[in-house]
């Protein structure tokens, strides 16, 4: 049975698209047929982060309107054949995504794929609601910072009340917390909310902690999901999170400040 996973946060700029790209690629790397959908209608960006922006012909709204079929719109990833990308439309009509249309697209995708990852836009407007409505699981991406934590709590409330599972009184959406842009050094110095602080406030099971990393920007510059940067801390953290999601028990890494030598302290940023 295929699973629909929404990557959500409420607040913008916390790493939803980075996470969608990395997480969907991670599932594909582990052998699962995965589709990732960009729900940010009007502000398409997942294609750029995944490096397939020049291959976009049709988008999700074209499929909903019957102007293209799903296979014409899906972009097969060149690095991993398990992964396909369904880009967002550039239309300015925010209501181009209808619940009925999204449901049809998802049910078609369910036939071919094991996992369908929905990259939610920021906010709690129509697009974000559409991305989460049909979800079976939710990854709540949170930065250790007051506004992000508050917005995540708001999103958790919406997942529990406005989703299909909530409305039809089915088993609730399974929630996972992913803390990104974490700085162990600043948390230890008491300048940043710690992983425990965020977890205590939100009380959602922790899926992973992605450290603040230069690798994230470098990967998006070149259109490579950061999980493919296997030597990078962020790449490894995402790989761990995917494995945990698939049921493996792994200790959390990157929670303690890196020990640096004298030269590292002088020359490191």
């Amino acid at each position, binding site marked *: 049975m295929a699973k629909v996973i929404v990557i959500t946060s409420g607040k913008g700029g916390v790493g939803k698209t980075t996470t969608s790209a990395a997480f969907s690629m991670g599932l594909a790397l582990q052998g699962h047929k995965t589709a990732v959908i960009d729900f940010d209608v009007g502000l398409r960006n997942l294609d750029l982060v995944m490096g397939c922006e020049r291959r976009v012909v049709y988008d999700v709204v074209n499929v909903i309107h019957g102007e293209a079929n799903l296979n014409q719109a899906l972009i097969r990833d060149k690095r991993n054949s398990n992964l396909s990308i369904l880009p967002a439309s550039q239309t300015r009509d925010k209501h181009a995504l209808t619940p009925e249309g999204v449901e049809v697209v998802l049910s078609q995708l369910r036939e071919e794929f094991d996992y369908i990852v929905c990259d939610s836009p920021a906010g709690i407007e129509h697009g974000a609601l559409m991305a989460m409505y049909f979800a079976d699981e939710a990854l709540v991406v949170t930065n250790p910072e007051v506004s992000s934590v508050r917005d995540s709590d708001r999103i958790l409330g919406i997942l529990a009340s406005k989703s299909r599972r909530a409305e039809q009184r089915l088993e609730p959406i399974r929630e996972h917390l992913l803390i990104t842009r974490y700085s162990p050094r600043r948390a230890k110095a008491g300048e940043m909310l*710690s992983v425990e602080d965020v977890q205590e406030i939100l009380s959602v099971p922790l899926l992973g902690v992605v450290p603040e990393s230069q690798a994230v920007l470098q990967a998006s510059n070149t259109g490579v999901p950061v999980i493919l940067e296997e030597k990078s801390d962020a790449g490894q953290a995402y790989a761990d999170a995917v494995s945990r999601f698939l049921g493996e028990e792994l200790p959390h890494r990157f929670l303690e400040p890196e020990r640096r030598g004298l030269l590292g302290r002088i020359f490191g940023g």
Partner: protein
Amino acid sequence: MGMLDYFMASRKKSASVAKERLQILVAHERSQRGGPSYLPMLQKEILEVIRKYVAIDPEDVSVSVDHEGQCEILALNVVLPDPPDRRQLHGV
């Protein structure tokens, strides 16, 4: 060390301030949501009715909805003023 301790203690770490603020805010926001949309109106009207007989403040009436299994419980809590005697009314 004494001096250092003094300076360390005098400035509260900003992360713990953030945590406290968030805990208060999140608890408040959680208590507000999930309830039916008529709750604020219901609370206002109950307050007006009670005020016909007893002088009470808006914060003396609280209405909440709790869940117990399949049951939804509407709890009404009214704090009556101290003199002549202090009572609490519980209704369903």
